[in-house]
């Protein structure tokens, strides 16, 4: 039986599934329910500085996009940090941690970008005996207008400065939560590392307008006819998050820095993919907000069953396994040649592969053979782009099969070369030509 106990920056939890700092972790009631359901840890909803709490809008806070059968694919929110009194939160955090010593409880914090503010709140949090802190440099809406959240996360120098203060004023592990609303995620990650952070967590939500009401012409969610950009999350953002996690995992400057993976984790598979790309654990929010806390049961059993099936004994066997396979385009093997193949027994003859290829790609799939509706790849035209595989509604009906070394590529008339050769070595590359001259 696979062991999925997790240790992240010294914080132990029975599994790698934490709830991210968000509405599901705003108060003891929810967190207690989450722990009863089996969640390994929580990052408590972000605390602000002492004094009157923030106020939220009293209209809709969420918007969404849906897929088939109204399956929620992307969620957008304009909620702020906790709107409850700081001491109420601290008292509850202390009690919950006492009740659940084996679970991880991490405090998310967002206070103004001033040393005094951080210096003031850290001892209060430390007194609760929670396991660590997460610096919220991610929220793209509302708080960013006040110089906090992603307004800090978008300036690497500020990140480094605040992390440094935190490391100076607390013994607790520091996790720096990054915003994806930047051009290159490596810069804020490097800054956090320079400041001495114990880990980074990412991604926070992506700035977004989720939809427009075409009757009122108001963005959604609409607050009396007006809308403001919100933070986008859920399954739709997972590919963006995976890439950012991988970029940090493989960056020589941040290599080895623990990463808590966040962004659209909905199933055990999503979690395993984040782990493979270098995350030490994952944080979940939208999936819980869509289906309730029970989904963690699927995540735990799914991960364990997969690990058992594959012979992985602990999370260390998985974490980072895919990182070495993430590379730059210029290093991809140009001698790797694949062709699409349609399994005629599985084909339902919808013709989507044909029309996608015919209208938008390489005219490499028939629609008729001898006057009969028939979809078949013309190898002499197929560049192996994979579009047909992606648009086919039947899983495994179209596959992309690599040509073995020595086989003839009917498109180019050349034989497949078994040697690895990339763009940096290609004669068409002007840089290569320069080097040769």
């Amino acid at each position, binding site marked *: 039986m696979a062991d999925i106990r997790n240790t992240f920056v010294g914080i132990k939890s029975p599994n790698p599934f934490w709830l991210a700092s968000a509405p599901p972790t705003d108060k003891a009631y929810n967190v207690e329910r989450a722990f009863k359901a089996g969640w390994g840890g929580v990052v408590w909803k972000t605390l602000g500085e002492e004094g009157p709490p923030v106020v939220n809008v009293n209209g809709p806070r969420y918007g969404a996009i849906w897929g088939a059968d109204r399956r929620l694919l992307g969620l957008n929110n304009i909620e702020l940090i906790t709107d409850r009194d700081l001491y109420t939160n601290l008292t509850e955090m202390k009690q919950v941690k006492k009740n659940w010593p084996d679970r991880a409880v991490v405090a998310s914090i967002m206070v103004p970008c001033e040393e005094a503010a951080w210096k003031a709140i850290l001892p209060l949090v430390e007194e609760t005996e929670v396991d660590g802190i997460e610096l919220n440099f991610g929220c793209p809406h509302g708080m960013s207008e006040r110089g906090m959240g992603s307004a800090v996360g978008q300036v690497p120098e500020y990140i480094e400065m605040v992390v440094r203060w935190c490391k100076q004023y607390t013994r607790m592990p520091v996790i720096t939560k990054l915003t994806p609303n930047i051009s290159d995620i490596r810069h804020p990650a490097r800054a956090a590392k320079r400041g001495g952070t114990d880990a980074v967590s990412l991604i926070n939500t992506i700035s977004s307008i989720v939809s427009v009401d075409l009757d009122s012409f108001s963005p959604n969610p609409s607050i009396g006819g007006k809308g403001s950009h919100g933070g986008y999350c859920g399954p739709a953002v997972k590919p963006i998050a995976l890439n950012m996690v991988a970029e940090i995992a493989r960056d020589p400057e941040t290599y080895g820095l623990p990463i808590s993976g966040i962004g659209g984790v909905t199933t055990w598979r999503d979690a395993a993919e984040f782990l493979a790309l270098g995350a030490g654990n994952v944080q979940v929010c939208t999936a819980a907000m869509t289906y309730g806390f029970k989904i963690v049961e699927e995540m735990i059993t799914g991960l364990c069953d997969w690990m058992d099936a594959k012979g992985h004994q602990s999370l260390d066997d998985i974490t980072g396994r895919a990182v070495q396979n993430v590379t730059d385009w210029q290093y991809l093997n140009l001698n790797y040649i694949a062709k699409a193949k349609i399994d005629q027994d599985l084909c339902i003859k919808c013709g*989507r592969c044909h029309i996608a290829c015919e209208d938008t790609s390489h005219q490499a799939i028939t629609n008729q053979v001898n006057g009969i509706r028939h979809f078949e790849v013309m190898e002499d035209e197929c560049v192996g782009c994979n579009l047909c595989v992606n648009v086919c*509604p039947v899983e495994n009906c179209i596959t992309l099969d690599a040509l073995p070394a020595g086989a003839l590529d009917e498109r180019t008339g050349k034989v497949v070369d078994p040697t690895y050769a990339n763009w940096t070595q290609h004669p068409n590359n002007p840089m290569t030509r320069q080097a040769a001259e």
Partner: protein
Amino acid sequence: MDRLGNGIAAGRLTPADYETNFADLHPRLDKHEALVAADRCYFCYDAPCMTACPTAIDIPLFIRQISTGNPLGSAKTIFDQNILGGMCARVCPTETLCEQACVRNTAEDRPVEIGKLQRYATDIAMETNRQFYERAASTGKTIAVVGAGPAGLAAAHRLARHGHGVVIFDAREKSGGLNEYGIATYKAVDEFAQREVDYVTAIGGIEIRNGQALGRHFSLSDLGGQYDAIFLGMGLSGVNGLGVEGEDLQGVDDAVDFIAALRQTPDRSVLPIGRRVVVIGGGMTAIDAAIQAKLLGAEEVTICYRRGKDNMNASGYEQDLATANGVIIRHWLAPKRIIADDGHVAGIEVEYTAMRDGRLVGTGETGVIAADQVMKAIGQNFAASGLGSLQFDGGRILVDLEGRTSLEGVWAGGDCVGIGEDLTVTAVAQGRDAAESINRALMAAAQPAMAVA
């Protein structure tokens, strides 16, 4: 009258039973159901469903329009090809047409619910009387259409769109043809056929003269002198006989009359029905009559068909619907004699049949099924008169693929012609296409001769 009284009697059920039994078979999908159903469409290239539709409705497009919240646009896509798309959504044997061709059958044995989606869109448009077409400028031409059924209405609408005037002659009191008189009640509730006639004729330029029967009130040659073209779409008015002893007994009825009476009566409790009913035939009419006999309170309803299950013209879905309603379907039985008791039907003697050397033969073995009522549903025939020298083929009007008959200026379509299946949707396609052919012919004749340099 009590429920189990012998003989043929009315009022076997409670008022609530009549209400329930003859309610809409498939209530319209609500918006959510429609979106879920529409999401299953793959938007196939050169979609097989579209090819399978006799009217070639762009099915992937109309379903996509539903899924994007544009049911009116969807309805227009349907009406562009089939102005009777509302009725076709209700009565088409989709399980042998578009839904049979759906690639989802290969994927998971469950097609996209094309018929129900078509009804969803067309209902929304028709309920708000949203008209999508305007008449072109008047051409000054007038076309006579014989028959206000699916073929005639489709022809008339298309001709009106082109700016021609149309006069429809129909033998019956109400327009709609089989849509009004020949469709099972639960498939077209709430006066749908009449509402559809109103919707189609709302384009203007179409005059309907009811109670005008070809051969009785006028002949084809009468029309020839008065109109620029003629379209014949009068359907089939004759009913095939069994040709067995006892056929004239009281209690032997035509299924088509029974179906029509059910549609026309304001009160089903006054319609008599046998306690035990035998329906002879294997097509849609047999099924519709048998199910409705059951719904009207018959205790025992048996369909006798002289061939096997696979030979039945009624689709598998329709057969299942009948058996689910308690109808017994018996195959390989041919009627031999209707047995009388005191001048009334008492039963039917049947002979077992079999295929021998590719021919259907009686085996000589016989049996008797007790019955108070026998309904004939073994097909209809063309029984019109007043058609002069018009040529026929296999008992129906001879036409080419454009609907042109052997007489110049005369077109025909629907069940009265010798090509295509006897379906509402086929009649619509033939009426529409004949109208286009008529328009081409009239417009070509109206063109001034081209000057040759």
